[in-house]
């Protein structure tokens, strides 16, 4: 088993739920922002000493949910703060961005880190499309075309032009090219059957952000495996990444209490207005090709919000408890889904950084040694 240490970089100081989306930035305090960045980056760099294989960054806009509007900036800092850990950008929201810029920035991180980039090519969650004013109904086709263009930008040995539906570039020749050849490993979302198929076609690793239901996750993994096989690629367990909100403490009770508090802030404050924006996009656009995928997306968030910690543990949606309990939970999920890589998020909502750090140490000392060989 391999593990990724993932961070959302949340703003932790809001006292009440924002009234609407986007969230007013009146409450943002620059000095506090500096403290948070410093602390979060230290924690992410510390993941290397705790035995994590990857450290993961991501992109979100217009919200205290996460302070990484461009995760490549954090990836760049981590490239110089770490030595061996892979830098997983999970990832750039490709349909919102200039694909050539993505190809360039990813190549920069890959070269600066000596080939440690894992390149996430992600469509993103619905409300981000309001932030950057991109038609949500174009998101899938934009992702498809931009992915093809980024791969060409990384691999073509001569300057080339691109005449597509969404992107036209008369001449492209990026400097630098990636360190890894032919290009860095790709990771794509596979939270529904459509995206799982797309990831398999591209021989990319697949990722599921939040698991509400092991049965649905298994279905996505099956679709991914089948699509990959049809394209001559047999995914290994470590090609399947599952996202887990995780809280590890000395005892089950301590872990539950900390996670409960953190989740309360996460769902009631950080996610509050985001849910409304997501509903708006899902109802008013063709963000999801199939209506059921939109309903499932909304239901998944609602389900996770309403469940107790015990219900979430039983459903395989979180990892929470003493090291011994978390080892059992990891073994169970690994056995049921065959996934070989977990994306561990320990900074849930406003869980104190000291609790997060202690959880990382417990992971290093008492969890990883028990599950690394799985």
């Amino acid at each position: 088993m391999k593990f990724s240490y993932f961070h959302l970089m949340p703003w932790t100081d809001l006292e009440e739920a924002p009234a609407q989306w986007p969230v007013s930035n009146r409450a943002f305090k620059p000095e506090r922002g500096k403290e948070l960045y410093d602390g979060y980056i230290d924690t992410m760099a510390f993941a290397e000493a705790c035995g994590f294989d990857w450290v993961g960054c991501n992109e979100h806009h217009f919200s205290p949910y996460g302070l990484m509007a461009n995760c490549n900036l954090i990836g760049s800092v981590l490239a110089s703060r770490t030595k061996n850990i892979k830098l997983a950008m999970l990832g750039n929201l490709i349909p919102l961005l200039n694909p050539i810029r993505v190809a360039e920035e990813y190549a920069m991180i890959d070269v600066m880190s000596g080939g440690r980039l894992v390149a996430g090519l992600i469509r993103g969650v619905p409300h981000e499309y309001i932030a950057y004013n991109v038609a949500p109904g174009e998101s899938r086709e934009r992702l498809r075309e931009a992915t093809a263009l980024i791969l060409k930008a990384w691999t073509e040995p001569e300057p080339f032009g691109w005449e597509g539906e969404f992107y036209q570039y008369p001449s492209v020749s990026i400097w630098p090219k990636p360190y890894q050849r032919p290009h860095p490993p790709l990771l794509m979302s596979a939270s529904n059957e459509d995206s799982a198929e797309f990831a398999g076609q591209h021989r990319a690793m697949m990722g599921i952000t939040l698991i509400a239901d092991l049965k649905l996750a298994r279905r996505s993994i099956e679709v991914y495996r089948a699509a990959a096989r049809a394209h001559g690629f047999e995914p290994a367990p470590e090609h399947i990444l599952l996202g887990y909100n995780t809280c590890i403490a000395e005892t089950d009770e301590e872990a539950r209490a900390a996670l409960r508090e953190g989740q309360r802030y996460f769902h009631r404050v950080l996610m509050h207005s985001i849910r409304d924006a997501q509903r708006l996009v899902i109802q008013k656009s063709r963000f999801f090709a199939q209506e059921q995928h939109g309903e499932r997306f909304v239901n998944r968030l609602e389900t996770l919000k309403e469940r107790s910690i015990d219900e979430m543990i039983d459903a395989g949606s979180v990892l929470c408890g003493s090291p011994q309990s978390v080892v059992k939970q990891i073994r169970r999920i690994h056995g049921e889904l065959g996934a070989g890589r977990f994306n561990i998020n320990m900074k849930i909502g406003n869980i104190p950084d000291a609790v997060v750090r202690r959880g990382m140490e417990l992971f290093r000392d008492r969890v990883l040694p028990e599950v690394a060989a799985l």
Partner: protein
Amino acid sequence: MTAPSFSEQRIELSNGPLTFRTGGVGRPILHLHGTGGPNLSPMLENLAQRHTIYQPVAPGFDGMPAHPSTRSVTDLADLQSEFIRKVIGGPSDVIGLSFGGWVAAWLAARHADLVDQLVLEAPAGLRDPGTGGLPDDPAELRRMLYAVPERAPKPTRSPEALARNRQVREGYAAGISLDQALLEALPRIKARTLILFGTKDEVCPVEKTGRRLKAGITHSHLSFIYGAAHALEYDQPERVARLIGAFLERGEAFLVRNPEAA
């Protein structure tokens, strides 16, 4: 805008007669056809609004008489140079499609002074043996030619006529899929060249062909047409027309975005 009318004409060249189609108004374009034979695609009709198009039928294709001394791709290139001199009357822009792209590349290498600007659409002649090529099975052939089958043109020739054209093409190609002599001759091409490949082209895989052309031709631009297979002009007519139109009309300045010129 009405489609310009085209007429068929015939000229006697030193090796024999040559039939050609011509139409349109403006700066000349010599259009060299592929294995299937000459076709007037909507893109070509569109170019005829601003250019005079000359589309010769290579000897032997579509039942035209063969020329006893025009046997190879380089012979065809020499024949087209004579056509340019005698019919067009001076240097011309040249578009070559697939097999015609192979001829066009030789024409520009052997008669550099007669080619102003060159467009090579998925040109043949530079693919590794055993890769790409045209399959025999008609369904497979159609799949490899068209990524957007609903945009494929209605057949204008019988399967037998197409098979004969293919035999004529094989005669000129003489079993060559990778023309080493052309590879060596590419630096002699002086014309600014636009090389187009579809991102789904399995007939002439771009990984080798496109890169070889780009590396070999001094002033060249390689462009990918997203969502197109081998029959670029039919799969993505707007993208191809936009690019070729800008290249032919604006030269190197096609690299500079100019919405007014689109």
